[in-house]
């Protein structure tokens, strides 16, 4: 699971949970694979993200070094910034670990890079 996916996942479908976002990450196996860098594409992804959540996720995996906490205007011209964003969004992958709902504490396992977000009928809103 890449951090871009983490940026879009919520546990709000759990009964009694309002936001369910962001899910806390506890990774036991993180893999980094090289992905072709396309600055134009990364620039188009940035506005679709919750940057704070991305920064927090990268930080919890020890990959926040050099990554600014806020997105500057004209970020699309800043190659260094785009490279960092590209790295945390697309190259860092969680293979094994858990995601935890910030409100209920319910844990969702990640196995072989696939998060298991299935709920029992009793857990659903």
């Amino acid at each position, binding site marked *: 699971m890449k951090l871009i996916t983490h940026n*879009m996942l919520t546990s709000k479908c759990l009964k009694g949970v309002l936001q369910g976002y962001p899910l806390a990450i506890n990774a036991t196996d993180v893999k980094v694979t090289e992905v072709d860098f396309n600055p134009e594409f990364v620039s188009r992804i940035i506005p679709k993200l919750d940057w704070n959540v991305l920064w927090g996720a990268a930080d919890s995996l020890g990959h926040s070094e050099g990554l600014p906490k806020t997105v500057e205007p004209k970020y699309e011209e800043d190659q260094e910034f785009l490279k960092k964003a590209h790295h945390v969004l697309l190259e860092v992958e969680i293979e094994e670990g858990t995601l935890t709902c910030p409100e209920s504490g319910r844990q969702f396992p990640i196995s072989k890079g696939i998060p298991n977000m299935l*709920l029992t009928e009793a857990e659903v809103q």
Partner: protein
Amino acid sequence: MDDTASTTTSVEDNTGNLLDNPTRDTLAEGLLGLLKPTVDQLDERVRATRISQLELKQQIESLNEELQKVKEALNNHPDLDPYVKKLIACKHKVTVVLNVLQASQNQNRAQAGLCLIRAASTDTMETPYQNHIDSKDFDHVYEPAEDSFLLIDALEKDLEFLSSKKPIFCLEVGSGSGVVITGLGMAFPQTICFSTDINLKACVMSKSTASHNRVALECVNMDLTSCFLDNKFDIIIFNPPYVVTESSECGGTDITASWAGGVKGRQVTDRLLNMIPKQLAEGGVFYLLLIKENIPEEVADIMMKHGFQSETVIKRQVRNEHQLVMKFYR
């Protein structure tokens, strides 16, 4: 001896050069350009033949049944026996031919997959390579069939429209083997593809289909789109469990979840229809495969109430099933 040695060296040199040679790509593209129309044509003809063979088989079967009835009516009239036998033999032959055709079509598709070029051209879509899948895995995951390919054909037909949307995030709900979303990922390398499936084995297969075709796919084991934030996806596609079944058959997480659709074959689809308005990004589009029994007009009505326009992209009759792909956009 010297000659042989020098020939060998030069061949090796050439091979070495070829590997880094930019003309190899041009050559490959040229070859592909030459071969692809023929393979496509062959594929199309094989498909047409398969359909007519199937129809023939059905007709023979019904004829057979009728003859059996006539035979019974005639109190085992001895003259009919050899005809029934001939028809049965004929039916077997048709089945064999059908299998052979199916095998050759699969091979064609595999060839097309092997020759895959991450097409920058936007008028065709490659069928993903699937030979990595062990056939036993299809005991647990829906095997790509005519409906899967109809969905791919619908997306291919709409490639120009889809590229005009400049999609960033694409999602297939219930991706099964993953061929459809992988095909989409191959056509649009500059997107991030996501897939969900309620069946973990399907998630694993989708991921491996994508990676064998060098598509980066993000798979999440979830029910429909229940755990995604709102307004993210530019394209959502869904080949639902559309078979009309008892309501109680619906709601599993194994292979039955891939086909059992409950009442009108729409129980799962209708749940997703209510999520689509929230899940689609601004300007997003939703592609849905349906059969006639699902009452597509009703689906269009539901989506109209959500503020969506609808359009039928493609239709096909497969055996007794009338399949179609609809798209919905605001």
